[in-house]
């Protein structure tokens, strides 16, 4: 902390502004080709192909959904099995106690419910939400990210990050502007 303070304000990264979504995809791809990995892009609406251009490969959400679906299905079935076979066995129209076809509807619904709810919660947590503060909001121009501008931010934590070289690289992408993203020294993000 003290070492960083002597160099001036803490830096989160460098941000470049573009005005066209396709341009952003292309420039993000160039940055990936140049070896940058810890970066993110901010757009007013979902841009097709942007995650791939940033080098995004996979995440945990499908695995969370899959595990939740299996657990929900097994749990839903076992609950009915326990009720009908173990806890309150009642002979209904001579059917077997373990009337598995009839259990399928609730089993199916529990599968979907668990997958949906846990998938949603997992997505929220993996995105580190809820997050009331993020350094990118320190850039005044950044509010345009929710109207009509497109931003690419290379983070300082990237091994290849260098204040001078990375700025030169971003300038070379011909953006509409390059900004330093400051970060409050009592609330450090990396």
């Amino acid at each position, binding site marked *: 902390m003290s070492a960083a303070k002597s160099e001036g304000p803490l830096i989160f990264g460098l941000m470049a502004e573009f005005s066209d979504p396709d341009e952003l995809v292309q420039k993000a791809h160039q940055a990936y080709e140049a070896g940058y990995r810890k970066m993110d892009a901010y757009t007013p609406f979902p841009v*097709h192909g942007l995650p791939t251009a940033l080098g995004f490969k996979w995440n945990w959400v499908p695995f969370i959904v*899959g595990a939740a679906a299996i657990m929900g299905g097994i749990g839903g079935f076992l609950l009915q099995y326990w009720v009908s076979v173990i806890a309150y066995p009642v002979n209904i*129209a001579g*059917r077997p106690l373990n009337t598995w*076809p*009839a259990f*399928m*509807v609730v089993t199916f619904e529990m599968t979907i419910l668990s997958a949906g709810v846990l998938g949603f919660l997992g997505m929220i947590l993996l995105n580190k939400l809820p997050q009331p503060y993020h350094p990118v909001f320190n850039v005044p121009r950044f509010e345009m990210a929710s109207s009509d501008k497109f931003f690419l931010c290379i983070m300082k934590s990237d091994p290849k990050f260098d204040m001078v070289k990375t700025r030169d690289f971003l300038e070379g992408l011909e953006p509409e502007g390059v900004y330093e993203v400051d970060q409050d020294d009592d609330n450090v993000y990396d």
Partner: protein
Amino acid sequence: MNQTDKLPPRVNQMGRNALFIGVGALVISILGFFLDPNQFYKSYLLGFMYTLQFPLGCLGLLMVHQLAGGRWGFSIRRLLEAGAMTMPLLAVLAIPVVIGIPSLYLWADPAAVADSHLLQHKSLYLNVPFFIARMVAYFIIWISLAYLLNQWSAKQDQDTSLNPNSVNRFKALSAAGLILYMLTATFAAFDWMMSLMPYWFSSIYGVIYIVGGGIATVTLSIIVGRSLMDQEPLSGVLNIDAFNDLSNWMLAFVSFWAYVSFSQFLIYYQTNIPETITFYVVRMAGGWQYVGLAMVFLGFGFPFVLLMSRTLKRMPRVMVPLAVLLLFMRWVGLFWQIMPAFYETFHLHWLDILLPIGMSGIWVSLFIRQLKRKPLVALHDPRFQEAPAHG
């Protein structure tokens, strides 16, 4: 885009092989007719219902595409049009079913009707003249829809104006056509398959057959599309994203098929009334239950798990074998629907295999002939320009 598109040699070869195998299988099957005519008609019905699901499914999916649009539809529209255009062949193939009515349908046997109060009550609907009249009506409706959609699409190829209103008649016909289609295809499944057990009935039975036809159509599109997607002009439209859409269709139809099949089963299982449970009593005993279990695991479970993965859905070398498996499981499914109506214990005759191969072989060769008659990509559809981006 204006050059006449030649099919790749692989596809032409597929058409020739199919004709050769189809004619060969049918010629040998005629021998079976002289050995055991009753069995011949039963197996023939299986072959007929198996082959019918391709043009019927193509027609239905074509109307869904014309009504709703989307990238997937432009990639296979010409396949669907060609498939629907083969419907007259099925009208011809239906003639032996009519001749075989006495061998197939209990309600057509005067002695059985005289014995059964229930069949007498049903004879207002289940009688031979009305059965034939309905069959003629179904084919007139299906052939007319297929013909109009094909003609208009061929005209659209010539029309360079790209007038957005020119698609309205496709939409209007498809909207009305889909209603007619669901009704006629449902009643066709009632007439030709469900009435094999005339005491039993299920209102969702037709939907199960129609959705099965959807599986058959999408698997066919994946197999033929795979052979066409490597070269112009289809390579520009049937790219890996559109192929992914087709795999999604396969997932949707397989899931929907399992859903309606299980719904029917659950309702009868829970109701547990003697008249309505007969269908499953026969099919869950005597060896038939293993055929049913094969459908559950190979017709739904295994494909469903594979189709969960986006990576696999984008790999033609995985999807094509899966499509072949599902085409085979369609045969297993129809075999399980039809044959237990005649045999209480598991019974597989060589004609059950040979006749479906023969009839669908001839169908495939006609399908590929139809495919050659128009460019492989529909030209000048005003919706086409925007479609690739929106999916």
